[in-house]
């Protein structure tokens, strides 16, 4: 049994099923976007395909994969991961 799992930074990424659970609100803003900011970028079709495929293979949403990538890059540059 794990003794130190509570000390890990890593939060479980949301699965595709969890991502599907968020249903739109009446005003048209999905609950998953309330109080959140969009971060977007323009990349090559190869990068887009690679990211979508990677997310799919690991049973994650693209958003979950991006959140993991952002946390990794924060750690790389000595910042604390935000994890959400």
């Amino acid at each position, binding site marked *: 049994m794990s*003794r130190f799992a509570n000390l890990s930074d890593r939060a479980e990424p949301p699965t595709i099923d969890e991502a599907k659970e968020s249903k739109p609100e009446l005003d048209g803003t999905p609950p998953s976007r309330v109080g959140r900011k969009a971060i977007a970028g323009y990349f090559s079709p190869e990068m887009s395909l690679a990211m979508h495929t990677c997310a799919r293979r690991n049973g994650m949403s693209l958003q979950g994969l991006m959140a993991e990538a952002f946390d990794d890059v924060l750690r*790389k540059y000595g910042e604390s991961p935000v994890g959400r």
Partner: protein
Amino acid sequence: MSTQTKTIAIVSQKGGVGKTTHAIHLAAAAELQGEIALIIDADPQASACEWSSWRDGAPPEVIDSAPARIAAKVELASQQGASFITIDTPPHSDSTAAAAVEVSDLVLIPCRPSAFDLAAMRTSLRLVELFNREAWVLLTAGPPNAPRICEDARELVREIGGRVCPITLPERAIHRHASADGRTVCEVEPAGKAAQEVSQLYNWTCEQLNMSTSKNVEMLA
């Protein structure tokens, strides 16, 4: 933090010198001797975490950590019973190495006997000096049948004021095979040379930390 908990930071500005390998093997050797060992993986590449997942979480346990959280995690792990902690750090990251060095009782700087590695090792030594910690250069990945190369490197380290661990860990293929299989060299080939070297390094580390080399023996006595 409990004074019983011993923390070893493994730092080097160079990549591929065996930081993760030694963090894993020292912790595994400690676990084998009855310590409650923990590896804090502060490298974003998360190789130690990956190794742990390959062995289905069998001890020693591995947790990840952002640099800013290393100190808090060592403290909490100590409260939760950890007695032997190794911290694996990434290359090219002064902030992470500094955070690890700051909380450590002993710093190991793995270094291959090559000019580039020896130059990078100077940077790591300077960093450790800033925190006034006990640091030893650990010569790794040299050719197993050419002791002269390591002897020359040893001399060079001494010339710049560094201390060299008397145990050297030469390049051995079994380290790669064991890691890829989520195991340690001691688990794959307990009577092999690599396992002996790991055991010698662990015993030497215990001596530096004034630790008993085997809690199992103490418990039986």
